[in-house]
C-alpha cells in the first residue's frame, strides 16, 4: 500500500517534467502572404518542409517538436508589429522569424529589441537591418542590397563600358542599390561615369517615356533595379525600342525564378544578373532539397523556398547547439554559427549578425521559350562585405555588445 502511494507521488512529480520535455518549441513567423504570394507561398513551402523534416527526425532538445505559428502582415509594418506583440505576449513564442518587406523587417526587429526576443530575418534586403538600424537581437539570412550590388559591380567592372545609366524604383531599396553600385563600381573603375538616372515610382513605371529618356543619354551600359511588374514592362518595351541592343545590362534579382519565369520569350539575352538557376545546381545537398520539395509540393522550388527552408534549418541548428531556447544563449550561439545549407556552408557573422549566404551571378539566355541563367557561378556572401571598420562605424554601438 505505502509503496503504491509513494509510487503515485513520485509519478505525479515526474509527470510535469515529462510534460515539459514534450512542450513544443514555439516559433512566431510573420510574412507578407497576401501581398506578394508569388514569393511568400514558395517561402512558406520551404519552411514548412524544413519543419516537417526536423519534427520527423525527432524534434529538438530531446524530443520537443517545432511548432510554428504563422501570421500574415499584409505588407503593413503596423500589422506586423501587432502580430509580433501577440506572438510574444499571448503565444509565448521563443523567437521570431521571417518577414519579407524591408520596412516590415525593420519594424519587427524594433519590437524584438524592445522585448528582448531573438529575431531571425529571412528575406528583407535593406542594409539598415543589420547596420544603420541593427540591434543585437536581429540576425539576417539573405544577402543584403550591398552584397548583391557588390557582386554585380564586380562583373560590371569587367565590362568595357564607361558611361552608365541607372533605373531603379524610387524608394529605399532602389535608392540604396544604386548608391551602393555607384560607389563600388567607381572604386574599381574610377573612369566610369553615370550619365542618366531614372527613378520610376514603384509599380508605376512609364516604360516608354523612361526608356526614351535613358536612350537619349546614350549610355554604354545600364544598371537595372526594377523588378516584378515594372521589370516585365521595362523588358518588353526595351526589346521593342531596341534599348538593349549593343548595350550591356546589369540587373539585380532578375535571375530569380519568381522574376524570370513571367518574362518567357521576352527574356533579354546577355543580361548580367543575380539569381537562382535551380535546375542546374549540382551539389548533393541541393539535389536532395529539390527532390524532397518536388515530391512534397509537385512543383520546382523558387528562391523563396530556399530562403524559408534555410532560415528554419539555421534556427534548428542554433537551438541544438545552444542546448536551450534561452534568448541570450541563442544569440551567443548564432554569432559565428556555421550552418550547412543547400548552397554550401554559411556563417552568421559575429560582427554584424548577417549571414554569408551568397547568390548566383550569371547571364540570361533564352531556351525553349523560357529564360534561363547561363555561365553562372556561386558568389559566396563572405567575399562581398565591406571592410570591418566600415561595418563597425555604421552599426550602433549597443548592437555590438
Amino acid at each position, binding site marked *: 500500500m505505502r509503496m503504491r502511494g509513494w509510487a503515485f507521488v513520485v509519478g505525479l512529480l515526474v509527470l510535469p517534467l515529462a510534460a515539459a520535455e514534450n512542450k513544443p518549441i514555439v516559433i512566431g513567423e510573420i510574412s507578407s502572404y497576401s501581398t506578394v*504570394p*508569388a514569393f511568400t*507561398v514558395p517561402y512558406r513551402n520551404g519552411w514548412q518542409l524544413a519543419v516537417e523534416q526536423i519534427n520527423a527526425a525527432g524534434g529538438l532538445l530531446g524530443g520537443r517538436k517545432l511548432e510554428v505559428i504563422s501570421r500574415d502582415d499584409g505588407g*503593413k*509594418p*503596423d500589422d506586423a*508589429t*501587432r502580430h509580433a*506583440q*501577440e506572438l510574444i*505576449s*499571448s503565444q509565448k513564442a521563443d523567437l521570431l522569424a521571417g518577414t519579407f518587406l*524591408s*520596412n516590415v523587417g*525593420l*519594424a519587427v*526587429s*524594433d*519590437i524584438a529589441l*524592445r522585448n528582448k526576443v531573438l529575431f531571425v530575418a529571412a528575406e528583407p534586403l*535593406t542594409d*539598415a537591418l543589420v547596420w544603420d*538600424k541593427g540591434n543585437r537581437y536581429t540576425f539576417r539570412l539573405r544577402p543584403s542590397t550591398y552584397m548583391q550590388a557588390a557582386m554585380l559591380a564586380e562583373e560590371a567592372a569587367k565590362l568595357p563600358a564607361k558611361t552608365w545609366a541607372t533605373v531603379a524604383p*524610387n*524608394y*529605399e*531599396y532602389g*535608392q540604396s542599390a544604386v548608391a551602393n553600385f555607384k560607389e563600388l563600381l567607381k572604386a574599381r573603375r574610377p573612369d566610369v561615369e553615370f550619365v542618366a*538616372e*531614372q*527613378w*520610376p*515610382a514603384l*509599380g*508605376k513605371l*512609364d*516604360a*516608354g*517615356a*523612361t526608356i*526614351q*529618356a535613358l*536612350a*537619349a543619354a546614350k549610355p554604354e551600359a545600364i544598371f537595372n533595379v526594377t523588378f*516584378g*511588374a515594372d521589370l*516585365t*514592362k521595362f523588358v*518588353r*518595351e526595351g526589346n*521593342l*525600342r*531596341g534599348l538593349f541592343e549593343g548595350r550591356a545590362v546589369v540587373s539585380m534579382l532578375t535571375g530569380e525564378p*519568381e522574376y524570370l*519565369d*513571367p*518574362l*518567357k*520569350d*521576352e527574356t533579354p539575352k546577355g543580361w548580367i544578373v543575380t539569381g537562382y538557376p535551380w535546375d542546374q545546381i549540382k551539389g548533393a545537398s541541393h539535389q536532395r532539397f529539390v527532390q524532397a520539395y518536388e515530391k512534397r509540393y509537385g512543383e520546382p522550388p523558387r528562391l523563396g523556398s530556399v530562403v524559408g527552408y534555410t532560415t528554419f534549418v539555421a534556427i534548428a541548428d542554433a537551438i541544438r547547439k545552444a542546448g536551450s531556447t534561452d534568448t541570450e544563449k541563442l544569440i551567443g550561439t548564432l554569432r559565428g554559427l556555421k550552418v550547412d545549407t543547400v548552397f554550401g556552408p554559411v556563417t552568421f557573422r559575429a560582427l554584424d549578425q548577417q549571414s554569408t549566404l551568397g547568390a548566383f551571378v550569371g547571364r540570361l539566355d533564352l531556351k525553349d521559350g523560357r529564360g534561363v541563367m547561363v555561365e553562372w557561378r556561386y558568389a559566396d556572401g563572405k567575399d562581398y562585405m565591406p571592410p570591418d571598420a566600415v561595418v563597425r562605424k555604421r552599426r550602433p554601438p549597443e548592437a555590438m555588445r
Partner: protein
Amino acid sequence: MNLLLIQALSGLSHAATLFLVASGLSIIFGVTRIVNFAHGSLYMLGAYLAYSLSQFLMVKLGAPLGFWTGIALAAATVGLIGAAMELLLLRRIYQAAELFQLLATFGVVLVVQDAVLAIWGREDLLSPRAPGFKGAVEIVGQRFPQYHLLLIVLGPVVLAALWWLFHRTRWGTLVRAATEDREMTGALGVNQRWLFTSVVVLGSVLAGLGGALQIPNEAVNLQMDIGIVVEAFAVVVIGGMGSIPGAFLAALLVGEISAFGVLLFPKLTLVLTFLVMAVVLVIRPYGLLGKPFATGTSPARGPGIHLHGTTPRLRLAGVALLAALALLPAFAGEYAQLLVTEIVILALFAASLHFILSIGGLVSFGHAAWFGAGAYTSALLATRLGVPMSGGLLAAPLAAGALALLVGWFCTRLTGVYLAMLTLAFAQILWSVAFQSSWTGGDNGILGVWPSVWLGSAVRYYYLTLLLCAASVLILRRAAFAPFGYALRAARDSPLRAEATGIDTRRRQWLAFGLAGAFAGLAGALYAFHKGSVFPNVLSIP
C-alpha cells in the same frame, strides 16, 4: 528636338489608356452620381480575361483573329460583369449616402482581388505581342512600337464614337439629360432603371477594353486595379466629373506631363499627377470642363444626422464604458492591453474624422495625412532632436492642425467629390514625400520611438492614452454642441440659409478642418509612441 517628339508620342499612348478608363468612370458618375471605386477592378478583369481568351482563341482561330476577338470578348464580358454589379449592388444603394456607396464599391474591389487570385494564380502573366503590331517603326531615327501608334489612334476614335453616341442617338440624349437633371428626367417618364444599367454597362466595357488593350504592354498582375484607379480618378476630376471631352483633355494633360516629367523631374513621377490635380482644382474648382452640380441634383442630401443632446442614459453609458476601460488592466493580459490601446487611439482618429465628415459635412479622403503628420512630427522630434514624449505629444496636434489649416484653406473652396479628391491629392503628395525622402527615413521609416521611461510599461501607456483620448473625444463632442458646432451643422444642411443668417460658412468649415486635423495629429502621435516606429503607410489611404 527628336527626343521631345518621341516623348510626346509616348505620352499620347499613355493618355489613350487613361482616357479609356477615365471616360468610363466619368460616364458612370455623370449619370448615377456614384463614385465607382470598382472601376479599377473592371480594368484588371478586362486584362486577365483578355489574356486567357486571347490565348485560347489564338489556338482555335489563328493568331490575328484570335487575339483581337479575345480582346473584344473580354471587353464585352466585363460589360456583363458591370451589368451584374449594377443590378445586384448599385441599384440598392442609390439612395444611400455617398460614403456608403463608395464603401460598397470598395467591397467589390476586395471580392474581385480574391477571385482573380483564386482563378488565375499568383504569378504575373505576360501575353505575346499583338499580332500585326509586333515591331517598331522608325520615327525621327528612334524606334517607336507599332502597338503604341495603334493606341494613339484609338484614343480619338473612341472619343468620336462616344460623341456620336451621346449627341446623335436618342439614348445619348437621355443620358445627357439624366446627367444634367436626374429628377426631371425621371419626372418626364424615362425608365431610369434601364438607363442606369446601360450606362454602367458602357462604362464597364470601356474599362474592360482599356485593360484588355494593355496586355501586349505589360504582364497582367494583381496590382493593376489599385494602380489605375487612383490615376483614373485624378484624370476624371481634372477634366470635370461627367464630362467626356474633359476626360480626354485631362488624359492628354496627365499623359504628356508624366512623359516629360520623366525627362525633367525623374524623382517626382509619383506625385506629378497629384500636383497637376491640386493645381487645376485650385484654379478651376470644378475641373477643366466640369460644371457645378445644379442645385437639387446633388446627391440625396437633406438635413444630416441629428445629434441628440446628452441624455442621462447616454451619460451613464459613457461613464460605464470609461469605468470598464479603466478597470481592464486588472483582468486582462498584456497583449489585450496593447490591443485596446490601439483601439482607443483609432477611436480618437475616427472621432476626429466623424467630426469633419458628419458634423462638418465635408468628405475628406485625406484624413490620414493629419494622422501621419502628427506621428511623423513626434517621431522626428523624439529621434532627431531628442525631444521627450511630452513635447512630442504637444507638438504633434499643433503641427497637424497647422497643416490641416493650410491645406484646408484650399480644400474648403471646393465641394463634394472635388473636395474629397483634393484632400486625397494632398495626402498622396505628403505620403510620397515621406516615402521617397531620406530625412523622413523614407520607406524604412523611423524606429525607436518609445515612450518616456516613466511611462515605459504597457499599463501606464494605456492609461495615458485612455486619458488623452477620452478627453479629446469629450472636447470634440462639446465642440459639436457649441455655437461653432451648430453653425457648422447649419452650413452642412442648408448652406444658402446659413449664409443668409450671417454665418460665415467657409470660415467655420476651414476651422473645423483644422480642429479635426489637430485631434487626428494627437492620435497619430500616440500611435507612434505605441508602435515604436513610424512608416509612410501611416499616411496612405488604405
